């Protein structure tokens, strides 16, 4: 596989990546269109960004979304990391099959089913729907992603380091904090970022589990999108895409820098 791509490979890659990126690119361009019509270019303008920040509903929804995202991603990271450690370290234990099944199932479970089932849980427990219920639901959804990301890192982590620490008298807890955690930290942080973006993105589960006053940004976008394409929504989308892109680029630069400064073993 080192012969380099053939012309056919190059064409299929170009078509594939164009297919992936063209819609996003067009959306960004339209958000700077002065005209309200998508097909007519009315000149460059940032006026939709101006109106955006005066839209109180949208701003309130954005604030709810950020709070839910921060809290649920943090909870999911703690729980998902614990689950990953349990799955990699604890060999066989009673109920392991059920545990690993539950750990990965949310990755592929249709969101409609998860949303409905969580709603029924909250109704049965008598918890009023609101920011709390959305946060709990998002934690459950996103911890599976954290588990997978952290577990794949743990699988390649040299366990003898942890054993060496314990031989030198560290308790398992201390060995975990001082040896294991610093080593898997990039994966834990990547898991947090993934959980955060998934929470920012989720429409279906939030729709089932939110109540009055806890409308999230995707729910607000969705209700406006159903009325048709609007330049203001294009502007929100562009801001979100920009934030994510900058985050991912910073992340990869950080990783590169880490690799370079890490002392070779």
């Amino acid at each position, binding site marked *: 596989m*080192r012969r380099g791509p053939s012309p056919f490979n190059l064409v299929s890659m170009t078509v594939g990546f164009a*297919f992936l990126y063209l819609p996003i690119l067009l959306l960004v361009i339209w958000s700077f269109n002065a005209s309200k019509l998508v097909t007519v270019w009315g000149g460059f303008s940032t006026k939709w960004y101006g109106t955006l920040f005066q839209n109180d509903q949208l701003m309130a929804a954005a604030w709810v979304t950020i709070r839910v995202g921060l809290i649920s991603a943090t909870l999911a990271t703690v729980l998902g990391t614990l*689950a990953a450690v349990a799955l990699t370290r604890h060999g066989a234990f009673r109920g392991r099959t059920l*545990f690993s099944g539950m750990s990965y199932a949310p990755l592929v479970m249709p969101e409609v089913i998860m949303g409905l089932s969580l709603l*029924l*849980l909250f109704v049965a427990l008598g918890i009023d729907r609101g920011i709390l219920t959305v946060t709990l639901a998002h934690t459950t959804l996103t911890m599976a992603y954290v588990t997978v990301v952290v577990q794949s890192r743990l699988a390649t982590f040299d366990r003898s380091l942890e054993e060496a620490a314990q031989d030198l008298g560290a308790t398992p807890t201390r060995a975990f904090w001082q040896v294991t955690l610093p080593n898997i930290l990039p994966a834990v942080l990547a898991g947090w970022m993934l959980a955060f973006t998934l929470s920012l993105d989720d429409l279906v589960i939030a729709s089932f589990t939110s109540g009055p006053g806890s409308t999230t940004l995707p729910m607000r976008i969705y209700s406006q999108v159903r009325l048709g394409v609007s330049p203001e929504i294009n502007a929100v989308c562009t801001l979100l895409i920009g934030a994510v892109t900058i985050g991912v680029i910073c992340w990869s630069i950080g990783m590169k820098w880490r690799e370079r400064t890490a002392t070779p073993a």
Partner: protein
Amino acid sequence: MKRTLPRLSALIPYAWLLVFFALPFLLVLRLSLSDSALAIPPYTPRIDWGGGIDGVRAFIDALDFDTYKALVGDSLYFNAYISSLRFALEGTVLALLVGYPMAYGMARCKPGTRSLLLMAVILPFWTSFLIRVYAWVGILKPQGLLNAGLGLLGLPDADLLYTPAAVQIGLVYSYLPFMVLPLYAALEKQDHTLLEAAADLGSPPWKSFWQVTFPLSIPGVIAGCLLCFIPMVGEFVIPDLLGGPGSLMIGRSIWMEFFANRDWPFASAVAIVLLITLVVPIVLYQRQQVKALEAGR
């Protein structure tokens, strides 16, 4: 201390998943056997804990399979169910046809280019799903970009928005990264000396591909297809934004029953049927996932 703490650390996520993932499914199952009612919450019966064991018995007696009977008798749901499976199957095959050459080309690039391209496949996954689907509305709508482009070429208009074709485009577009990543992972680690050996033995490149490369990439093909097929079947956003009333899908039916008709028991019954359909692919996917993740243990 030496043993209890690790145990405790496993117990917390375990308990969380039992309460927030497993228990809710039992509630869906229970509700699917109830009747809908004009109440808050809108179903009956509810357990009368004050009535002790008799209350629980009365509750169990009141459960029945009426919703499922109604479901089987309703051709609308049967059609939605069949069309979801068809959409997902076609979408998976199309994603494989588009994704395989992409992943193959990526695997043959230089390592530096490879990691850049890999990043480019992952990046759309980080940007909002809803936004990416919504972008297609602007492209496919009657005065949208597709028709503007076709008009420039002197071709007749294609009204794709709110048709099954639009749903199919949306499905392939949204799930393509899920197909490319496992395929790339399988193709990238292949040993190129195998192909050289095949060539030395006189095999033409296309024959080496079908007899060496493709068979070795089968685990990636299976993983990619499962990762696409399972969520596609239950997809809601894509048929709702891009499909017309004709593009019925089961995820959309659950949503409508729940939010528009407020028939919670019926929505639950539809969800249970969907879940039963997906149990086999989900278990297959999990076994594969466990194998991949615990290989290094």
